[in-house]
């Protein structure tokens, strides 16, 4: 290793410790006995116990929150991508004024605060009986996410040369056929990226389920926030809950890290 690289690692080390330690300490605590969890000074050597996880999943019934989170996230991803892909394609290829207007409106919507949607949706949900259902969560998450998905897909489709569409249509494809059979498969990496970001948004969302659900449709983030940190005897269970919620999403994103990092800059380079 060159000297420069060694110095860079040394300088980076404090930041990496700052970034990782909260989660590492949480994991350690989740496998402690409750008495060890809030010892002063901290206990570093202990026999690991999975009691907290058993309490969490068996006694607290964390499973039903997981089912809610999984169903809502999956439905949001599928619907968002289906709507967003074709719109992104249309916006990448159509040069008319309507396209520009739609892009501009989507951008404006992206800047809006969550409360601006939470409030009317709360009222509508109360009146229509959709309150505390997964359906209303999916609807509102698809809405919040649509502007971003459309912009992202447009960027990915712009990278695919228009000559390919034309060649497919000369060979007898309709516009829709060219999109579905030729262009969409080429944009698969982009679709994975857009899917990852949608998943992250839907799975991590907090304000919407806080406002729009009560008991039946509660998702994981709301469940863990209700645990709180007030009762310290309960902390190992809260820690186990934190780890259980964070692990799946971390695993998915790190497995697809290449696609994820690509998406971070997608909005920046192509305006």
């Amino acid at each position, binding site marked *: *290793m060159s000297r420069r*690289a060694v110095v*860079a*690692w040394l300088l*980076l080390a404090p*930041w*990496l410790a700052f*970034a*990782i330690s*909260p*989660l590492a*300490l949480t994991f350690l605590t989740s496998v402690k006995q409750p008495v060890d969890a*809030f010892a002063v*000074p*901290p206990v570093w050597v202990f026999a690991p116990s999975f009691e907290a996880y058993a309490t969490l999943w068996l006694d607290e019934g964390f499973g039903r929150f997981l089912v809610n989170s999984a169903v809502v996230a999956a439905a949001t991803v599928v619907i968002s991508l289906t709507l967003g892909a*074709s*719109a992104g394609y*249309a916006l990448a290829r159509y*040069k*008319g004024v*309507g*396209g520009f207007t739609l892009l501009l*409106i*989507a951008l404006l*919507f992206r800047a*809006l*605060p*969550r*409360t*601006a*949607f*939470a*409030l*009317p949706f*709360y009222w*509508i949900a109360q009146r229509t009986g959709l309150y505390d259902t997964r359906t209303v969560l999916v609807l509102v998450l*698809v*809405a919040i996410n*649509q502007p971003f998905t459309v912009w992202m897909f447009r960027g990915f489709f712009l990278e695919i040369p228009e000559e390919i569409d034309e060649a497919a249509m000369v060979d007898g494809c309709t*516009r829709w056929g060219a999109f579905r059979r030729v262009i969409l498969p080429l944009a698969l990496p982009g679709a994975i990226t857009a899917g990852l970001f949608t998943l992250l948004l839907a*799975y991590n969302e*907090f304000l919407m389920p806080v*406002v729009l659900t009560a008991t039946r449709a509660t998702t994981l*983030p709301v469940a*863990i*926030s209700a*645990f709180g*940190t007030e009762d*310290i005897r309960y*902390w190992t269970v*809260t820690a186990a809950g*934190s780890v259980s*919620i*964070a692990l799946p999403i971390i695993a998915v994103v790190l497995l697809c*890290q290449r696609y*994820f990092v690509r998406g*971070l*800059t997608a*909005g*920046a380079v192509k305006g």
Partner: protein
Amino acid sequence: MKGREFLLLAGPSAAAMVLLMLAPMLMLLGISFYSFHLGGVASWVGLENYADTLGSARFWSAVGWTLIYVAITVPLELALGLGVALLLDELRGGRGLAVASVLLPFIVTPVVGTVVYSWLFKDPWGFYVQGLALLGIEFDYASSAWGSRALLMLYRVWAATPFAALVFFAGLQSAPVDRMEAAAIDGAGPWGRFVHVTLPHLRPLLLFVAMIAVMDNWREFDSVFVMTHGGPGSATATVMYLTYSVAFAEQALGRGAALACLTVVGIALLLAPFVRSLWRENRT
């Protein structure tokens, strides 16, 4: 592409946005003109909700605190993000692992991050509180306004800096090598090359990240809800948290709607300088 094809392909998405975003927005605007409690009778009050909000001390204290929060966290995120990106760029072996570690706080569910942070700083047995005590610093965030504010800002910097770092890192991959070398031949040191070549190259990305950060931090809600509930008193109530309290905890939907509309105006004002500079750059 023909107009008809455009309508067919973009139609469903446009319809979803109109139905699920535009219609609720108009409804929000409508609600803001009513005195409106759930289950009660709505009565038209005109601009009274706006007048009440603009005349209330807690609105202005929330605006003040949220602006301080944005003004402190955004420059920190940019500076630290740039530093981390430059260091990542120097690495040769183990880069993937370092990038994954940097990314971690950004992926973790925000509520989990905030729950963990409030535990780490829980007096007297939280890990970080014990660490600070070893250094002779006593830190009980819950009892002091600025302690709570500092903790919220620390959390935000932890959670949001990875985004800045990775965007800048991606930008550095396309840094102009030839201009770098030219500057080196002209006698520019590392600092000179950074200021005259790297920074101008990253300028659009800096602008982009700053814009996103201003937008996101102005809307901060999760950490306030979990860590401080806006307290002690209402010292840490951000604009979004205040809107939530008024609309849902106090069930004053009309007043909450007016607040939400004012939040939108706030975002527009905050983003105006960015939009202007983007506009200028695109014209030249």
